[in-house]
């Protein structure tokens, strides 16, 4: 499973990375979590950050960040 967190390095983006890592750990699944900061790569999906992409699909965009449970749900929806 491939998870991408899109953002230009702001504090909320870091927070989302943290939460995604936590979610992956709690779900006990194998997933590659990648931080994407390159504008070209980000713009493939959205103009709004921070965003969450699971297996190439945009799952969340912008603030407020989803809750940990919601993140788990979003990840599982692509499983």
């Amino acid at each position, binding site marked *: 499973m491939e998870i991408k967190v899109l953002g230009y390095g702001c504090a909320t983006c870091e927070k989302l990375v943290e939460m995604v890592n936590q979610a992956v750990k709690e779900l006990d699944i194998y997933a590659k979590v990648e931080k994407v900061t390159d504008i070209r790569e980000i713009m*493939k999906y959205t103009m709004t950050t921070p965003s969450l992409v699971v297996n190439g*699909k945009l799952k969340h965009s912008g603030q407020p960040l989803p809750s940990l449970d919601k993140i788990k749900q979003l990840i599982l929806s692509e499983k």
Partner: protein
Amino acid sequence: MLKEFASYLTHNVIGLEQGSRFSEVIEFFIYDSFKIFLLLSVIIFIVSLIRSFFPPEKTKRLLSNKKEFIGNIFAALLGVVTPFCSCSAVPLFIGFIEAGVPLGVTFSFLISSPMVNEVAVVLLWGFFGWKIASIYIGTGLLVAIFGGFVIGKLKLEKWVEDYVYKFCIEQKQEILKQTFKERLQYAKWNTVQILKRVWLFIIIAIGIGGFIHGYVPQDFLAHYAGKGNPFAVPFAVALGIPLYSNAAGILPIAYALVEKGLSIGTVLAFMMAVTALSLPEMIILRRVLKLPLLGVFVGIMTLTIIAVGYLFNMIL
């Protein structure tokens, strides 16, 4: 009802004597605070809810391949409801251009978005009345439409950084579906965020209205920078351009200035200059615009805002 509430709080809860100058000031302060925070909360909530229907990805689609002028009008209006902060100006700019939004139309959006928004409008309404607030919205939109239109007509695409036009987004950016509950959550979150950011400035502004009132002669500034002085507007605008603040941050100053006799037109022009143009935004925009275009942008905005300031002073 709010008046009675303020009076009750002042005299019964705080226990101040009725009729003294001090208790009047406190009552006024409580009344004004409640009025403005109530207005702010309700209107920000409603606007945020509307806003959740216009993510930048959708606005981009609505504006792509729009004709000039009509496009400028749309862009200025969408600028009011599309969430935007200058930190995301670069991806937004690239996204718009890449989607085929004309350069001038993109500028109309970039101008109106930070300048005309619910916070500015509510604060102007609360402090200066609905007439001033509507005039600000109307002229703000005009400035955005006109400024973008002129930039479009000048055909300045050559002064956009080359990589912007080479940018190619292979897949279509998706617009996430949201449930109504999620929209409500967003609206609530956004309202709290904005209130957190602006409450102190508002309290200070109300404080200035209630307390400092009367310490400096009313016409102190009127004498130097009133309607009669033709240099007041350009001076205020020139002062406002490098300053970086949102509408709330500038409000205490604006309010104090009007209290002390600066004409409201001059102050509105000052506010527009502060919110529409700022040094940090220029630095960010420099990443997509070459210097001459940035210069043209600042120049057109400065002249337009000065013209609007004179217009305000003539009609108000």
